[in-house]
């Protein structure tokens, strides 16, 4: 399994895959935007403001998934001392951070017509804000600490501490009384969203996932070339 995660294998795949992922992303995003803004019906209660869901929910899902992945890769890095795990984690962090910000900002915009306020110190919103702080700390740890201070280890510990926040975000709407509604889409129980709204939601999620893959491929290649540039200096 680990041999498929070797840097030159991933570099080879990512160099070729970038343009195909980009084309696929543009196609899926165009279909998703048409579905979300034109073809999907308005909500009987929220009217057209429900369309914000098609960017807010996928952004939140992917931002949480990416941080969870960073956490697991950090555990892998600390246990197996595999530097490639930390480079993969470092390469997926920027898109995770941007999705986190998108979820916070679009959620805030959605809050105004729905709750009458742009911001509330509600458990779900506050825990998402804390996640963005962990993302920022994780990204900054790579920039602030130099080789001598072992940034791989420091960033891994930041990700591990941040992992504690993931179940808090997930269950915050059940543990506390919040303004934020409970999740409407469940993998294990019945989903309360109508299929006409589920379709654009899933297409936009696929588009956002493709975008995060595209950013990962580009960032991973950048990191690999940066390492090799340092290697050329030593030759």
């Amino acid at each position, binding site marked *: 399994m680990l041999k498929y995660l070797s840097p030159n294998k991933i570099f080879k795949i990512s160099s070729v895959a970038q343009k195909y992922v980009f084309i696929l992303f543009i196609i899926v995003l165009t279909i998703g935007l048409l579905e979300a803004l034109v073809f999907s019906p308005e909500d009987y209660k929220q009217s057209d*403001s429900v369309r*914000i869901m098609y*960017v807010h929910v996928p952004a939140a899902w992917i931002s949480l998934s990416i941080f969870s992945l960073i956490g697991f890769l950090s555990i892998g890095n600390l246990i197996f001392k595999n530097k490639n795990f930390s480079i993969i984690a470092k390469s997926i962090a920027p898109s995770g951070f941007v999705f986190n910000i998108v979820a916070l900002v679009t959620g805030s915009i959605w809050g105004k017509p729905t709750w009458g306020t742009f911001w509330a110190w509600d458990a779900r919103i506050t825990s998402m804000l804390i996640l963005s702080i962990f993302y920022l700390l994780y990204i900054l740890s790579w920039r602030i600490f130099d080789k001598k201070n072992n940034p791989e280890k420091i960033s891994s510990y930041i990700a591990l501490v941040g992992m504690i926040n993931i179940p808090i975000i997930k269950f915050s709407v059940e543990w506390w009384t919040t303004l934020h509604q409970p999740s409407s889409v469940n993998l294990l129980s019945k989903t309360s969203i109508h299929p006409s709204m589920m379709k654009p939601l899933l297409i936009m999620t696929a588009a956002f996932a493709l975008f995060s893959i595209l*950013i990962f491929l*580009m960032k991973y290649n950048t990191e690999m070339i940066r390492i090799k540039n340092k290697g050329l200096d030593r030759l």
Partner: protein
Amino acid sequence: MIIEYLVMNGYGIYVWPAFLFTMFSFATLYAIIKSQLVREQKRFEYKFNKLNVSKSSVATNQKLLKEILDNTAASKI
């Protein structure tokens, strides 16, 4: 009809900024990551072209360097 669609029952002032902010964030992140990649590729080409023949042959024997060389315009291959 177009105005009616853009207004979205009065919710257009919320819906459009949410979508525009998302697309702007995507475009900005893509531009930043792309510029970082191009900068590192250019730096690699410059450094590789400065190597003498013996050092460049040592470098080209490394697997990952071969992959990078295949994807950049360094001229010693």
